[in-house]
């Protein structure tokens, strides 16, 4: 089953009188359960492309389908629902709510989804246990280390059991050891829940974890390589 299908996706930005082509006619098909890496240097268009397939931004040209649904005609509210239900996000800077505890941060997407409290509690505790943070559940983000925060973010991204998790440079703000641990956690979740992961990085050590790597430069895919998982 195709989870993400991007066809001839382009994105232009206007910067003053100049038009910048951030993404140019990219095609991408990602199947269920795949663990995909998009790698490229800063400014290569990774984040712009992530935003488009994450339904945070609209392409100037081309179409995006998430689970075979064309998202171009969806309203803002429908896109919000789609993101809440089917797409998990892991950000480079963790982006946790500072006023919420680890437990509450993970619980938030379930509350938006309308799950009842008891059900939420069961899922959140299981998810925190899976990411190894059960004992830190009552800690606020500023009481956690970078790695722990990113684990909370992983748990938050996965808590609604989305079809797709998008992780834009999830290890960029972590030391290499912690970065590897986060990637291993993501891969464990990929194995356990068959969740499709697309992540971006320019760290060769992190790329090793991917089944498929797409190299992007100047807004275009320039190379695709498939690997056996280690």
């Amino acid at each position: 089953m195709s989870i993400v299908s991007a066809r001839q996706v382009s994105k232009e930005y206007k910067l003053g009188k100049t038009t910048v082509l951030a993404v140019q006619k990219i095609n991408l098909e990602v199947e269920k359960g795949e663990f995909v890496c998009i790698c490229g240097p800063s400014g290569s268009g990774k984040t712009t492309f992530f935003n488009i397939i994450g339904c945070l931004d609209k392409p100037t040209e081309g179409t995006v389908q998430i689970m075979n649904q064309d998202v171009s005609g969806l309203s803002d509210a429908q896109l919000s629902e789609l993101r809440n239900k089917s797409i998990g996000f892991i950000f480079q800077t963790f982006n946790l709510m500072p006023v919420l505890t680890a437990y509450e941060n993970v619980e938030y997407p379930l509350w938006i989804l309308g799950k009842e409290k008891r059900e939420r509690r069961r899922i959140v505790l299981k998810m925190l246990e899976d990411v190894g943070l059960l004992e830190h559940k009552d800690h606020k983000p500023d009481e956690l280390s970078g790695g722990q925060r990113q684990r909370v973010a992983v748990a938050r991204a996965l808590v609604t059991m989305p079809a797709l998790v998008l992780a834009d440079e999830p290890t960029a703000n972590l030391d290499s050891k912690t970065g590897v641990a986060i990637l291993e956690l993501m891969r464990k979740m990929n194995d356990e829940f068959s969740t499709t992961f697309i992540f971006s990085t320019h760290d060769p050590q992190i790329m090793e974890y991917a089944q498929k790597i797409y190299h992007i430069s100047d807004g275009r895919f320039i190379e695709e390589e498939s690997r056996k998982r280690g």
Partner: protein
Amino acid sequence: MKHSFFTLALRNIFRNKRRTSITLLSIVSGMVCLIVFGGFVEYSFWGLRESTIRSQLGHIQVYKKGYSEKGVANPSKYLIDDFQRMEGLFYKIPYVELVTARLSFSGLISTGENSLICKGDGVIPEKEAKLASFEEIVDGEGLFEEGKEEVVIGSEMQKSLGARIGDDLTILTTTPSGMMNAVDIKLVGIARSGAKDYDSVFAKLPLSVVQRLLFTTEVEKIVILLDKTEHTQEVAQQLNLLFKEKGLNMELKTWNDLAPFYQAVVRLYIGIFGVIKVIIAILVLFSIANTMTMSVFERVKEIGTLRAIGTKKSGILKLFLWEGFLIGIMGAVMGIIAGILIAQGINLCGGIYMPPPPAMTTGYNALILIVPGVLLYAFLSTIVISTISACYPALRATRLSIVESLGHN
């Protein structure tokens, strides 16, 4: 935690304690102004109203039918001949504390050397002290005994006449039949109501003396004093019913009808209070809007994250409106407490000295009344203004682009 935009908003409010404190301080200051000024205005209304009622008018005046329309030109045709009967009937009505009668005349009052026009009132001495409780005897004493030829005059009149306590004065007037009549009378008291015009012309004599002067046994009006001013309309209705039931050819006027000056002052003060309310509302509105806008700018990335993980625009709107509402609630509660404490403090210090108002002769110490209506108004309007103040920042927050918000540092 029970997840809700309410709890999220509550926690966000306490994130930046200093900023929230400054916002709350501006709300509390606004509310204190409203409560203290509202209480001052209410005290001024109360003081003016009660001094008018309890020095001149009473709460209700009853006349023979037609008096209001034609009695000024020819009062002798509208005199009441059965005061004793009516007094008995009126005392049966709840809230009535005092029923007394008056017979007025216009004439000249003279010391022999100086003469002035006066507006004389024949009063029942033993009831007058209770009716005119706001009238201050500044020299001598009040009237005590029915039938004695004694007079109490206004303080301004006394100055103009140059009369002293114990002086013999002469009052000259015209009887209803057109004859001139005069009475020699002893000055026993000088009184001050505070109203300069009234104090320049009034002279109070025992009712029986005035009746002898005017060759009549009747009275001009019946003055009724109630336990509380708030009961005026209710008693007026009962009196009108009584007139119908008993076939009494009478009419009445309440103090409200007889005190146009009071109404003018009330309208003026309400106008001033309204302007102050609007100014305070604008100040509070901008203060909260500023805080909320700063809060939106500081949390752009968070807003982007909330939107990315599925929060709808309506959710973001609710979050910021809750924050405005909660700041309003907190400010309103603190403002009520501070307002009451400051008002009580002012009252404990003896109030605020006010110079004599227009047409009055004496200043007064204004107290701050704690008025439930003002407290409720201040409380509710603060919450409403606070919530309205949050609308613009909240709308701005919903209009932020998710992508730009996530990239915001």
